[in-house]
């Protein structure tokens, strides 16, 4: 294991905020990915692209992206997934709260350890959705449903690579 960076806050202190356009278009792109015509096992195992991008911004831009945005995006996901309104909203708000609490801790680790932390959050979000649907009388949808949070967490690295590099590394002059 590589030695952890022991100056987590200082590393980001001089950063400029990421541009609003980048935040917006990354979330919009994630939404487009999630409304592709998924079906069957692919739908069950579909990574929650919106959640992972949301968590990324909640960790990296905590002043811009918080639980309000999470709530709104969750409502949008409920409508497009034709679920009971508020299910995704609740799951996203809880996961975002987790990200806010763990933010400093997550940033002090490298990617593999960060992914493990994010996995915890995605499992919590999926568990909230699952529990709510069971309460509403749905059956267990299938074993592939358990894969979804893992795949979501595995998206952390590509999302980091895509968004972190464009938003942050460029401004740090390649130092990050």
């Amino acid at each position, binding site marked *: 294991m590589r030695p952890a960076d022991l100056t987590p806050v200082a590393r980001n202190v001089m950063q400029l905020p990421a541009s609003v356009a980048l935040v917006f278009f990354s979330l919009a792109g994630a939404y487009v990915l999630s*409304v*592709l015509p998924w079906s069957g096992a692919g*739908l069950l195992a579909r990574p929650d692209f919106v959640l992972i991008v949301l968590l990324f911004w909640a960790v990296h831009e905590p002043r811009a992206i918080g639980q309000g945005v999470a*709530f709104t995006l969750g409502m949008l996901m409920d409508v497009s997934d*034709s679920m009971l309104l*508020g299910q995704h909203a609740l799951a996203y*708000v809880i996961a975002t709260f987790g990200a806010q609490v763990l933010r*400093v801790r997550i940033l002090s680790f490298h990617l593999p350890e960060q992914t493990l932390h994010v996995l915890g959050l995605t499992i919590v979000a999926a568990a909230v959705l699952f529990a709510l649907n069971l309460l509403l009388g749905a059956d267990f949808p299938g074993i592939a449903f358990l894969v979804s949070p893992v795949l979501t967490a595995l998206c952390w690295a590509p999302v980091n690579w895509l968004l972190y590099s464009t938003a942050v590394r460029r401004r740090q002059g390649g130092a990050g």
Partner: protein
Amino acid sequence: MIRESPSFFHRGPSPLARLTFFTIGAIAVMIADHRFHALETVRLSLSVLAHPVQQFAAVPSQALGRIADYFASQERLLRENQELKTRVLEQSAAAQEARLLRAEQEHLLSMAPGKSRYTEGGLLAEVLYSARNPFTRKVVVDKGLTHSVAPGMPVIDGQGVVGQVTNVGTFTSEVTLVTEKDQSVPVMLVRNGLRAIAVGSGKDGSIDVPFMPVSADIQNGDIFVTSGIDATYPPGLLVAQVTSVEKNAAYVFAKIVAKPAAGVESHRYVMVLPIPAMGAARPEPKADGTKPGKHRASARRRDAPR
């Protein structure tokens, strides 16, 4: 514990306070939607916003489909054409017979009070995608409020009943499939006119027929059609074929499993039928012969004409 900023930078409520606020908000929204169906306008307006994005996301798969269509071999098309021609011939005989029977029936019914139970017309709709909800069985079709689709309308394909419109957006609507858990269709056995209720099992390609006594005359291969007594489905639409009958004297009811007649998971074009005009007034709102479904999607009870 590392404080992110000194407390004199005021940054609004703490995360925990926000969490509490939004959690209560989300639960309130859920209750409002589930219990009181109060948020249909919110859903409708959000779905209008999301519509262009969904169209955009559907482009790649549609393009793939078009390309596959373009390269469809001529031989396959010819064979398909031939099959369709024979089917049309087969069905035209049945259709003429049906027309005659229907004329007779109309004539007979005209002597009795009440209107015809048959419905005219229908709306051809294309299935856009299955609803992206792993917990339910729904598809989204490309006709909505702008085409005067209403919740509760039955949906069929070339073989039989596919499901029922349960949620209408501006340009699209959601069709709950007959295999959805607790989605019920009042049916009748063709062979002996036995009435029953077919209830979706929540599994692909299987429908349950619960609450039939062990003594009921139901055999493997029997065909269920809609009975039409619910004023939602027109009578005589093919629903399912019995695949297994398990009669165990230890239980009060037989365990009957049927296979839906329509290609419930595989069709591309479906027909949305209007809700038939109800002949006689129903005596009580609850006496409509259907098992009350647990989920909000059973729009029949809310939207059927009284």
